[in-house]
């Protein structure tokens, strides 16, 4: 341009034209300078804005970083929350499982206890029946005792009666022995008498023979009548002799008669004695009869006792077996109770575990709530930051919009400058370059602004999302807190339930222990009962055996009594026969006495006759010779005498025979007496045996009484024990019933608890899911924040570089302005030089 100025010193027109052009150029340059100034200002403003943008972006980045940090914390906390909730859920599940197990255990326990109750009921019933049986046994034993006492007294009385009977029999026996001795004597006498009679008979026969011989002689005498007279003296002497003999015979007869009398008397006394004996025997028989009856009664009583004892034995065995089954039931009960105790212990442990879990769950939930509150606070803060960030982002957007606008304008200006420069041709080349650079810078600024705008838009979206997420997270945190609160309340309820459960379990444990103790007591008392009932059974068996032996003895005694009675009866009968025979004997004796008397009388008469005969014979003898005639008659008389004698002999023979018979009868009487004595002795010994037997009976009865009393005492104890067993069984049944009820309630409570635990588990699970979602959202937010942070960092960097570049642009624009100004000045100078100062130099 300087050259053109320098070369323009031509004609005025050209100068004018040049001046006009220069003016135009100057105006354009001034315009350019003005524009450049404007651009500079704009660029300065842009730089300022860029810096403030950078600062804001930095601030934003820091905020985002802090947001990211808090988000990180929040995410960590929420993850922790998730873990905690999972733990809570697991714990809840554990608790639920434990509770379910507890419920199952309780149900089993309830079933077991129900079984126990059934067993206890059965036991109670058994004890009841046992007690009843024992009471019955006691009553029957009392009866037995009464019976035994009665038996004892009866035995006592029987014994005394026996003793009396024995004494009486001994007496009778001695009397019988005496009688026998007497009979013996009588028999001896009778024997003697018989012998005498026999002698008498032989004598009589001799007499008869002699008489016969006499008769023969007489016949011979008669035959030799003549000789008779001679022999009369002899005859007389013979008669004398005969008379003497007759007298002697008479005397002998008198003795016989006396003897017969004595015999009669003896027979009479014997008869009376026999009668007495018979009466005594009769009495004995009656007594024996009575004794037999009594013994029968006794035997019946003893048999009754035996039966009763058998019944007692059976009852005792029943008691024993019942006690055995009771013992078995008690053992089972004991085992079941032990099992219950074990189950209860387990339930206690489970409950304790549940309690610990619930407490730790409560603590965890507390921590969760704390974490949730913190999260909520952090989220609130984050939401505030987000809102702030959104506002800032909006501001950034506005700024970016402005930058964009400016860049656009710059671009436009640079393009137009380029176009102008192109129009300017060669002269505009440098300007075109600058315009191009400005355009490029503006383009870059626009691109950066567009990036920023994009980023800010993303940021805004992210902020909005973050805010929404934050709100959602807040809501979720609140829900989580609420749910955790509910969980805590639930856990509290669980804890209370567990405590209640614990208490219940403790009660159960205590009840179980008491039950175990009671069961042990029942078991031991049942065992004792069993032992006692066994010993009772044994004692009773022994007693039964004893009673059986007593019964056997009684039976034998009865048989013996019967035999005794029969023997006595027979004896009595025999005695009666004996008495009868004795009566006959007495009759015979009487007859004998009478006959003997008659004989005596006859003998006397014979003697008298003999005497008369003697006298007659004497007289005959004297008058024999005289009375030869009469001798024949006398012979006849003698023949008659002979026949009479014959008859006498026959009578004596008869008498002898009778005496024989007497003797024989006496012998048999003696024999009978001996037999009687022996029988009496036997009776006495039998009575003695009976007595000893009765004494044995009495002793046995006493023993029975004692045993029965002991049995009664045992039975009373047994009854007491049975009563206590019954009471204990009832108490046990009641306790078990209460236990069952409590267990059922507990089972129901546990089921309820389990149901609530299920609900809790579900809600915890939901909570966990929610929290996981929160965590996920948090993670998303965090990643987004990271992106934002990164983008912001880039943004800041870009803004910083943009600011730097803008500063460069400003500097360059300033240079442009300066150059333009210089140019303008030069042109002005040129103008002045060429057109005498038409133009003012540009400033």
């Amino acid at each position: 341009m300087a050259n053109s100025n320098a070369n323009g010193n031509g004609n005025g027109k050209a100068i004018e034209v040049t001046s006009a052009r220069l003016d135009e150029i100057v105006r354009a340059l001034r315009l350019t300078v003005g524009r450049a100034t404007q651009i500079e200002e704009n660029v300065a403003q842009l730089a300022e804005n860029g810096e403030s943008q950078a600062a804001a972006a930095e601030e934003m980045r820091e905020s985002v970083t802090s947001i990211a940090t808090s988000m990180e914390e929040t995410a960590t906390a929420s993850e922790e929350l998730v873990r905690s909730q999972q733990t809570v859920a697991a714990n809840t599940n554990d608790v639920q499982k434990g509770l379910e197990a507890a419920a199952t255990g309780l149900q089993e326990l309830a079933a077991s206890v129900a079984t126990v109750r059934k067993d206890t009921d059965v036991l109670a019933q058994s004890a009841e029946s046992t007690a009843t049986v024992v009471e019955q046994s006691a009553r029957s034993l009392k009866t037995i005792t009464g019976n035994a006492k009665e038996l004892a007294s009866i035995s006592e009385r029987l014994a005394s009666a026996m003793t009396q009977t024995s004494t009486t029999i001994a007496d009778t026996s001695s009397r019988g022995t005496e009688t026998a001795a007497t009979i013996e004597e009588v028999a001896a006498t009778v024997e003697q008498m018989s012998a005498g009679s026999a002698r008498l008979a032989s004598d009589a026969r001799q007499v008869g023979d002699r008489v016969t011989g006499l008769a023969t002689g007489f016949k011979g005498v008669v035959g030799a009548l003549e000789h008779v007279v001679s022999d009369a003296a002899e005859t007389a002497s013979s008669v004398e002799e005969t008379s003497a003999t007759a007298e002697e015979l008479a005397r002998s007869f008198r003795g016989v008669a006396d003897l017969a009398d004595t015999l009669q008397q003896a027979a009479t006394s014997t008869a009376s004695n026999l009668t007495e004996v018979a009466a005594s025997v009769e009495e004995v028989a009656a007594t024996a009869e009575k004794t037999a009856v009594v013994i029968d009664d006794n035997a019946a009583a003893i048999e009754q006792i035996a039966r009763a004892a058998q019944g007692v034995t059976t009852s005792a065995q029943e008691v024993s077996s019942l006690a055995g089954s009771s013992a078995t039931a008690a053992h089972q009960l004991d085992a079941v109770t032990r099992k219950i105790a074990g189950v209860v212990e387990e339930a206690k442990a489970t409950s304790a575990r549940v309690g610990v879990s619930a407490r730790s769950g409560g603590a965890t939930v507390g921590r969760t709530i704390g974490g949730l509150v913190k999260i909520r606070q952090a989220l609130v803060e984050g939401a505030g930051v987000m809102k702030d960030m959104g506002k800032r982002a909006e501001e950034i957007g506005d700024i970016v919009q402005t930058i964009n606008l400016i860049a656009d304008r710059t671009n436009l200006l640079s393009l137009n400058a380029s176009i102008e420069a192109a129009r300017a041709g060669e002269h505009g080349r440098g300007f075109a370059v600058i315009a191009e650079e400005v355009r490029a810078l503006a383009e870059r600024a626009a691109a950066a602004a567009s990036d920023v705008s994009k980023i800010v838009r993303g940021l805004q979206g992210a902020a909005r999302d973050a805010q929404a997420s934050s709100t959602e997270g807040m809501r979720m945190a609140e829900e989580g807190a609420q749910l955790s609160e509910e969980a805590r309340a639930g856990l509290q309820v669980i804890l209370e339930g567990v405590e209640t459960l614990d208490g219940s379990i403790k009660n159960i444990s205590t009840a179980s222990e008491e039950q175990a103790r009671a069961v042990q007591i029942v078991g031991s008392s049942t065992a004792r009962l069993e032992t006692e009932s066994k010993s009772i059974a044994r004692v009773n068996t022994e007693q039964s055996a004893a009673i059986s032996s007593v019964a056997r003895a009684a039976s034998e005694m009865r048989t013996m009594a019967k035999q005794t009675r029969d023997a006595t009866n027979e004896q009595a009968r025999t005695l009666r026969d004996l008495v009868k025979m004795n009566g006959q004997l007495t009759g015979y004796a009487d007859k004998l006495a009478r006959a003997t008397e008659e004989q005596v009388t006859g003998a006397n008469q014979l003697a008298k006759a003999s005497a008369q005969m003697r006298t007659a014979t004497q007289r005959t003898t004297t008058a024999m010779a005289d009375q030869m005639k009469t001798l024949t008659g006398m012979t006849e008389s003698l023949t008659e005498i002979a026949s009479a004698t014959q008859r006498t002999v026959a009578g004596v023979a008869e008498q002898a025979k009778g005496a024989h018979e007497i003797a024989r009868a006496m012998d048999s009487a003696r024999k009978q007496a001996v037999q009687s004595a022996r029988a009496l002795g036997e009776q006495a010994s039998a009575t003695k045996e009976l007595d000893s037997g009765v004494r044995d009976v009495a002793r046995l009865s006493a023993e029975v009484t004692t045993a029965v009393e002991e049995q009664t005492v045992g039975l009373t104890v047994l009854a007491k024990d049975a009563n206590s067993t019954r009471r204990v069984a009832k108490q046990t049944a009641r306790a078990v019933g209460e236990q069952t009820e409590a267990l059922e309630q507990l089972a129901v409570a546990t089921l309820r608890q389990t149901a609530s635990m299920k609900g809790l588990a579900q809600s915890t699970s939901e909570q966990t899911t929610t929290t996981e979602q929160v965590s996920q959202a948090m993670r998303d937010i965090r990643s987004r924040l990271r992106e934002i942070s990164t983008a912001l960092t880039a943004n800041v960097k870009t803004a910083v570089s943009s600011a730097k570049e803008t500063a460069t642009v400003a500097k360059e624009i300033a240079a442009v302005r300066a150059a333009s100004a210089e140019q303008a000045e030069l042109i002005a100078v040129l103008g002045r030089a060429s057109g005498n100062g038409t133009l003012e130099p540009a400033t």
Partner: protein
Amino acid sequence: MSLHVTFRVGNANYALPASQVLHLESYETATHVPGAPAYVAGLVQVRGRLVPVVDLRTRFGLPPIEHSLDRRVVVVQNGTRVAGLLVDSAREVVQIDEAAYEKPPEIIEEQASGFVNGVATSAQRLFLLVDVPRIIGEELSHG
């Protein structure tokens, strides 16, 4: 080598010799002229004079787009006539050797209704050269 103003309509880059361009203006809105052809967006006042604006999208048969800061008006001079070409964006100028102009393939020429009268390349980029008189001439004779 001469300066060309480049602009973008749709997906294609176009170029105009800077000599035909007066200047570039940003586009806010145009006053609609009733009865004018559909491709005439309206009238704008640029540096004290009224300039009709031809919407090249409509002119090239492309669907309309939303208003953006990028949209510009390339004020061209064809003889005495001044007109504005509304383009999607016009943000740079390039140096193109006019001797390197090539005729577009016939099929394109037919399809482009004669609006494109050449193809040029610069820095591996392809620019379509528009026939400004064709674009504005007919419409202005109608208008």
